[in-house]
């Protein structure tokens, strides 16, 4: 039996080594396919090969207003995220710490979370205008729910024995909250923040794309109407990279804070 598992381990190690390479190869193959198809088969009005997109990057950033639009979207995201956390954490704690409020308000929260918020977007823009306020609000409202729900879960699923042990050692209620419940909830909180971040980003992007009078939405409209796939895809690529970077950063933070978890 031991022999088998040792052999498996060696095979696995060889496999892993190749897997990373294979993945890279798959990505490169896809890019090549895109390059060839876009260059020789598709009307250049509709699709650009990756090479041309990369080459168009400088011109994209030189287009007046594009860097500003990107920067605006970025800080709108930042503000919306901070607001989502600032609201989501206390609300989650308030709901999670008492059984009565959990029973009463969790169903409402879950109901609101399941609602398609996109249908409110035009209303929000009507109310708050086409400036950053509507985008920040729409983004924050997407992020609040995952964060609250995760905080409630983190508070709720603490093993009762830990509370009993603290009580037996003389801990008072605020001590139990500060030293037992709060640290226990932190990994869930970070998981919720990761989901919340994705939600906020989606909300902000949706709002930006919807408002075609200015910002990202203006440029996507412009590049679409002028059949400029290179700059359009370039813009999309920049936003995609931003999304990936944020996700990686938050995943790192989540892993760091959840080190002690065994589950």
């Amino acid at each position: 039996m031991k022999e088998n598992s040792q052999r498996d381990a060696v095979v696995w190690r060889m496999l892993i080594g190749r897997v990373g390479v294979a993945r890279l190869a798959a990505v490169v193959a896809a890019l090549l396919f895109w390059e060839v198809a876009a260059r020789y088969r598709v009307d250049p009005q509709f699709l650009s090969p990756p090479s041309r997109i990369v080459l168009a990057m400088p011109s994209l950033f030189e287009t007046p207003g594009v860097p500003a639009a990107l920067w605006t979207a970025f800080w709108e995201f930042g503000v919306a995220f901070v607001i989502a956390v600032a609201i989501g954490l206390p609300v989650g704690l308030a709901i999670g710490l008492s059984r009565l409020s959990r029973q009463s308000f969790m169903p409402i929260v879950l109901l609101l979370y399941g609602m398609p918020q996109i249908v409110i977007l035009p209303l929000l823009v009507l109310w708050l205008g086409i400036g950053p306020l509507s985008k920040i609000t729409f983004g924050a409202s997407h992020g609040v729910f995952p964060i609250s729900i995760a905080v409630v879960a983190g508070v709720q699923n603490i093993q009762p024995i830990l509370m009993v042990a603290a009580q037996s050692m003389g801990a008072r209620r605020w001590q139990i909250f500060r030293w037992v419940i709060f640290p226990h909830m932190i990994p869930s909180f970070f998981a919720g923040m990761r989901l919340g971040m994705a939600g906020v980003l989606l909300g902000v992007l949706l709002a930006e794309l919807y408002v075609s009078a200015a910002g990202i939405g203006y440029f996507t409209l412009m590049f679409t109407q002028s059949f400029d796939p290179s700059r359009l895809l370039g813009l999309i690529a920049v936003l995609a990279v931003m999304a990936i970077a944020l996700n990686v950063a938050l995943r790192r933070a989540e892993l760091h804070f959840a080190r002690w978890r065994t589950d």
Partner: protein
Amino acid sequence: MAKSDVAVRIRDVSHQFGEPGDARFVHALQRTSLDIRRGELICLIGPSGCGKSTLLNIIGGLLAPTTGTIEVDAKPVRGPLPHDIAFVFQENALFPWCTVKENVMLGMRFQGVSRTEQEKRARDALAAVGLNDFMAHHPAQLSGGMRQRAALARALSLQTDILLMDEPFGALDEQTRIVLGEDLSVLLARAAKTIVFVTHSLGEAVFLADRVAVFSARPGMVKASIDIDEPHPRKPGFVTTEKFSDLRNKLYGLLHDEIRKSVESAAVTELNA
């Protein structure tokens, strides 16, 4: 004021969970009385569900009994007494996000010990249980036996007169249990505490205890008690003596019927559910 001879006085304590007629009603303890002498190590043993853990929680002030009273050092028990009583639980009651040392110090913080004193006591307690090299580890990184040592260190650092241990080795494998049992005996010989130790294991009870109180099946009460006259610390060789076997057999005789009764009633509950 001289402390009385009786550390814990249990008088006519009974306990039930829920009301008769509830789906979840459990009559855990019948009227039980017991005097626990200062400095003795008494084991509570009995079949599953006989209420021994319930009684332990009641002694420790974590549960208010349906009837009866508990007195610790002649004071009635109305809630946790962190300065008099420390617990060691069976499940992992160590805080997973704290290191071993932080766990021990957090317990003292709850008790109200000063920061410098916390440091000193933590180091001493962890050294006493043999975990000097693991102070900065998290519980998840330790084996089950080491975790229970850490839990024991936490309880010892609180420097209470009374220690309540609820099947502390229940989740461990037999070999670890044996080693920990021997170490515990050595430790407790030095410490001079009153200890109430709940266990399922006959051998463990005979090895560790000065007195073994045998519980009947649910609803539980103390059916009989056996004195074990053997000096502390108990030597590992004690287990092989004839005296040990006699005592163990006597215990077995008292317990066997109760175990059968509890298994059968559990089966009936299963069928009726």
